[in-house]
């Protein structure tokens, strides 16, 4: 089956929408009940911004976008340049190796450090 340019555009737009919805739905399932949830419309914007940020770092897997979106919600939309632990990971990165998981684990460690300090 051959698709013309318009049909291809519709297919890619549908794929993009489905992908964003998948990430958004899982994000809301886990972060929706927390205090970091900014509301659905803004969270969807965060997912889109996370997709762009992931692409800037040559990552495009949905799980990577999810984790970047979660860190943007939990820390800030520019956590990658603002947070020292995130900058260290960027500095130590080799080539285009995916770093979302490293960021995510470092973010969890940062939160846990605070939690432990408050016990």
């Amino acid at each position, binding site marked *: 089956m051959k698709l013309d340019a318009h049909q291809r555009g519709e297919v*890619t*737009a549908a*794929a*993009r929408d489905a*992908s*964003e919805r*998948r*990430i958004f739905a*899982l*994000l809301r*399932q*886990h*972060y929706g009940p*927390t*205090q*970091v*949830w*900014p*509301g659905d419309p*803004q969270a969807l*914007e*965060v997912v*889109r*911004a996370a*997709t*762009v*940020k*992931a*692409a*800037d770092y040559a990552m*495009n*897997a*949905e*799980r*990577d*976008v*999810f*984790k970047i979106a*979660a860190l*943007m*919600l*939990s*820390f*800030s*939309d*520019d*956590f990658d340049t*603002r947070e020292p632990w995130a900058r260290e990971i960027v500095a130590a990165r080799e080539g285009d190796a995916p770093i979302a*998981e490293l960021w*995510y*684990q470092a*973010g*969890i460690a*940062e*939160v*846990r450090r*605070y*939690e432990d300090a*408050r*016990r």
Partner: protein
Amino acid sequence: MSGTGNNGLTAPRFTWDLLNPNTSGQPGSFTGRAVSPEPVQGQTNRFSKTMENAGTAADQQLGDKPAGGDCATCPPQIILEHRSQYTAKTRYSEKEWVVASKFIFLVGKDVSRSFRTLSVRVASPEGASATWEVTPVGTHSGTIPKRTGTGNRFDYTPEVTNAQRPITASKKPNPPVQYSIKATITHGGKSHEIVEVVTQDERDIIRQEYVDQRMWRDKFTLHVPYRNHIKATDRADLRGNYQLILDSAMTELLTATEAAYGGRVHVSSGWRNPRRNLAAGSKVPNSNHQHGGALDMQPIGQRDMRGATRRAAYLRLYNAARSVRSRVVLLEKGPSAVYPSSAAVPSPTDKMPDTNEDGIPDAATSGGSKVESLFDIASHVHIDRAAPDEADDD
């Protein structure tokens, strides 16, 4: 509190203040209650545990699927492809247009005396138009009279002079010819810039030497070699100025000679790239050493050999080389032959005895000199085979 990210979003920013349970923060902010050690409002997990669970769920449910597809908010994936007259040949490339890492090219004048033209195009987004700017990297890459343009494709013609190219005697490798290509693409109402550098690989650096010499060296007529004749080797004594060697017949001649000789021989000179050939003091403009079709060989340990022992070793090597299919075998002292080309050395007979047992009759002469004395002064045995006709490659 809100973050002030570069994309203008207002996602909350994590600060210790936000984590203070006595501050409420603005709606959507990450408050202390979220990470409080004590569960709140039915939340049984610490926030770090929530993050862990969410990460695991993302790995399991989302995985490696590409996000966004052709996401409207994402920068487009820009792919440039390149073309030269060599990528257009199926011998070298499966595709006419290739990405930079697979791009092979030469610069300078071809057999029609025209400077070679290189091309670049936007492969993705398909059909996109770009504003182009091509800049030579290093003086040795020449100049480009018309180095800017617009359109999906841009053709550029580097011009090089003998003053710009490294063409004199040297035992060091040449640097690669390189061009930095900047493409500015307008897509989705935004401007995107990509910079790519195309670089000659070692095979093309070697081939470029032949183009250079053909353009500017008197009487140098050797053609530009095929890429598939430029090979890796684990024999350092076959190398010129590069890790790779040009081997049109060299290994075949060496293997056959060693088989006939009955052991390994030392190669005192194997492939000489043109600049190394000059550095070696060769007076032969088209020496077949430059085409990987010639070898200078010595018996292993010949430096410690004297008299009849040395002559016998050289005779054995000379005869081994003569048994191999070749164009010529020469007994040489430096660059000069001391014995007639490929001529047989007479065997000892009762009438022409070999009292010192070097295999050469004591009384044998050639050109008025004793054959034994010619073997005494020999520095190597040269063997070569004519360079293949690959003229269509240039």
